[in-house]
């Protein structure tokens, strides 16, 4: 006996989309009713409820430095920290070597320059040659001025200008020692 005859109505025919259109229409009507049935003013209450979150989102939570650091990758941060450490250690080493290599300071020349020499460093200290403190210094200034006057006579204005151009050279008492002796015959 054939249990599944090919002819005759099927007990549960599969409904077509057209058959289900009525159901779809009812569902859409229900959905529209649910949307329309939303409490009045729901949008305003939602906006009010979300306002603190929106304000908080706009406000920067972390300082600028933190945010900049956050943009740098973890590996890069590690490398930067290592480089900073190496730089710090190198600087400390150089300073230490410099301090240890200094010798005792030499005696200062009264009214002139005191020179401390030792190892690799030389420190030169100057007193003020323009404001002499005593008669000895005053006499020294007078001798410098006299030298300039002689130079002016012998070498002309150009030589004095040359000497005055570099005030540091003029301030340096050791340079005065290098000036030509005005009493010496230069042959000019």
């Amino acid at each position: 006996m054939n249990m599944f005859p090919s002819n005759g109505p099927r007990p549960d025919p599969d409904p077509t989309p057209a058959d289900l259109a009525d159901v779809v229409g009812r569902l859409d009507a229900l959905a529209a009713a649910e949307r329309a049935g939303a409490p009045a003013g729901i949008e305003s209450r939602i906006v009010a409820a979300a306002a603190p979150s929106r304000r908080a989102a706009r406000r920067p939570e972390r300082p600028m430095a933190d945010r900049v650091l956050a943009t740098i990758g973890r590996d890069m941060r590690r490398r930067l920290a290592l480089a900073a450490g190496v730089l710090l250690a190198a600087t400390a080493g150089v300073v230490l070597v410099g301090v240890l290599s200094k010798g005792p300071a030499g005696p200062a020349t009264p009214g002139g320059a005191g020179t401390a020499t030792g190892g690799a460093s030389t420190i030169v200290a100057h007193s003020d040659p323009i404001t002499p403190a005593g008669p000895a210094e005053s006499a020294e200034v007078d001798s410098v001025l006299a030298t300039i006057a002689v130079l002016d006579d012998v070498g002309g204005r150009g030589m004095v200008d040359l000497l005055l151009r570099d005030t540091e050279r003029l301030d340096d008492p050791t340079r005065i020692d290098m000036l030509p002796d005005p009493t010496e015959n230069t042959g000019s």
Partner: protein
Amino acid sequence: MQAPDSVDARSAEADDSAGDGLSVDHGGSAEVVDAELGRIIAAATSGDQAAWRRLVDLYARRVFALVRSRLRRADLAEEVTQSVFVTVAEKLGSGQYAERGRFEAWLFRVAVNRVRDEARRLRRHAEPTDPEVLGQTLTQRPDPERAELGALRAVLSRLSDQDREIVTLRHHAGLSFAQIAELLDEPLGTLLARHHRALKKIKSMLAGDPAGAEGEDAP
């Protein structure tokens, strides 16, 4: 299982025509073309309050309808709808959502996750009757239209969770099948078949055949 909130879900290229061939009324919000929606989202993200208000106007009632269809209490539905938009505001503001034309799928994924959480919580407690429904029962004479909608609600509540979710996402939230497929991370064909079966069950139950029901697990 919660659907992920991320927007990097499978691309959904298929359009509405893949569905039942019937248009979906998005009611309560004017249609917005994708380009305009993108501008609104970008403005809302950058702090434009008017744009944010527009976004809420566009979607609040659709989210509410979806939530209400599942939780069946208007007061609770509004509370959950608010929390959905608070989450959206936070994620937009913190840059966790990048607009790539999937805002609706993302928004309703947040809503579906929140509804699932709330439904789970409600199952552990006694289910109160919607005060609105109670008020109607006590004070109003039966309205044929209301009665019909009530019957349809009752039928929906007897569907399985999966079937009800697809039906409400399609009709209450007004999503395309492609968007639903993206949201639920399901193949499009599977969704179409399941939706078709769900419609058949509803038709059968409306005709008075209780055998169409699968789940009595609502909400």
